[in-house]
């Protein structure tokens, strides 16, 4: 059963140096506040996993928390590049970042395999691209019935998955809706999980399109209103598109970036 914890305690307990960590979210419900707490707690040598590493991963990478990135699309959606990510790959600043690169379809199926207790997943993917040349864990597999060649990718099993959701009840059952991405799979695939929520309520009223993560598959829940800003929580906030556009300028220069992080992340507590 999930315990209700503070964000600082949840990160301190569940995320350790060297861990494989997935902070998932597909544009919607990105756990920014949790990422900031990881930065404040000074975690190092993380293997960050995510389909769409965006601004929060740019921040984690730029602050030197990560040594590896497993991903399928690393950009600022609708804006352009992630400058800290590029600087790490192109110039190893502030530290070297090893990449393991996939397609969305491959990453999604890797989480599905992890959630399903299978060691691998099968898909039609990657064929003819240069990805298998640089990513060793993409292999061919043949259908035992038709002989057709398909692609296999290994299961993802993060040490810990962190997601943001709209609500939890006091027993720790979690409810999210809107674009729910790959969050259910990422939580079920992980050994441990932390969910930040907009609010803890007495009862989860059913909502169309909801995904429920039962308390018994979640390790801890932290109430962090606004915890996905500048991403959003459908029904609670809208995406702060201006922030994403503005990040392009902030993140372009190392010093500007550091100063911004000092002021907006390091010098503030949980309630940024």
């Amino acid at each position, binding site marked *: 059963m999930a315990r209700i914890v503070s964000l600082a305690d949840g990160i301190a307990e569940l995320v350790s140096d060297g861990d494989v960590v997935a902070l998932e979210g597909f544009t919607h419900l990105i756990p920014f506040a949790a990422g900031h707490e990881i930065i404040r707690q000074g975690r190092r040598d993380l293997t960050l996993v995510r389909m769409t590493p965006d601004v929060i991963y740019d921040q984690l990478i730029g602050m030197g928390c990560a040594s590896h990135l497993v991903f399928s699309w690393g950009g600022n959606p609708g804006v352009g590049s992630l400058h800290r990510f590029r600087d790490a790959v192109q110039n190893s600043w502030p530290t070297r970042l090893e990449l393991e690169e996939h397609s*969305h379809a491959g990453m*999604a199926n890797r989480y*599905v395999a992890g959630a399903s207790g299978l060691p691998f997943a099968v898909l039609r993917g990657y064929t003819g691209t*240069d990805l298998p040349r640089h990513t060793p864990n993409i292999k061919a597999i043949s259908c035992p019935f038709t002989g*057709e060649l398909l692609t296999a990718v290994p299961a993802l099993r993060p040490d810990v998955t962190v997601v943001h959701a709209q609500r939890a009840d006091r027993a720790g059952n979690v409810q999210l809706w809107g674009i729910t991405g790959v969050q259910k799979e990422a939580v079920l695939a992980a050994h441990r999980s932390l969910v930040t929520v907009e609010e803890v309520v007495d009862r989860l009223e059913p909502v169309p399109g909801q995904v429920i993560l039962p308390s018994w598959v979640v390790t801890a829940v932290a109430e962090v209103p606004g915890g996905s800003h500048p991403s959003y929580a459908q029904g609670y906030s809208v995406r702060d598109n201006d922030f994403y556009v503005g990040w392009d300028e902030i993140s372009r220069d190392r010093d500007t970036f550091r100063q911004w992080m000092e002021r907006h992340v390091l010098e503030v507590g949980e309630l940024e």
Partner: protein
Amino acid sequence: MSPGPGTEDRPEWTADEMMTVAASRQLRDGTACFVGIGLPSTAANLARATHAPNLVLIYESGCLGAKPDRLPLSIGDGILADTAESVVSVPEVFNYWLQPGRIDVGFLGAAQLDRLGNLNTTVIGGSYEDPKVRLPGAGGAPEIAASCREVVVVVRQTPRTFVDTVDFVTSVGYGRGPGDRERLGLRGGGPRLVITDLGVLEPDPDSLELTLTRLHPGATVAQARAATGWPLAVSDDLVTSDPPTDVELTALRALTATLGARA
């Protein structure tokens, strides 16, 4: 006044507008279109606002049948979920919807493209491990390029983009030529059209090499050749695009004014 881009000082429309309008015209009403963000999303929503009101927009965030009344900045803006016929998980959109070949048209952009329509959105220059420019990467593109019934590429035509050899094959067009898609087991038809700010390229029926088949009003073959990093073949039946209509331009400008609007 005859159709054309106006004078140099006061074009009636921009080359990007012409490109977007040309792309939107390729979308037939009632078909399903897998939409990437940026120019593809603008073109698809323009089609929905003009000649294809029943175009089914599929976003990789899981929004099926989205009907946004403004342009989303990302593929996951709330307006897409709010207006979708249904929102499914990301694994489902790839496994149940894209992979089986249910989607008629995949709309893709690229940082580099070669004469066989292979696309690069991964790295430019240097090596993969130590690239000159690190781009966002694959996202949904490899499987969109593999599995949609046909692919339409929307990209500005420059010698940096239209290259002899892409630095990384992120998404397969026609591979190394005729028979390659079949050999690789790719079940979609591949790139049927490349729509640029200068005109339209289509694969030659025999060689599959991208060939200039259409110029937008005001653009010239010489411009197109200069903007292409390989010796560009030009169709014997080269035609000129119809210029944007007032209806198209009005709808497009109304849409772009809403890009990323929060309410």
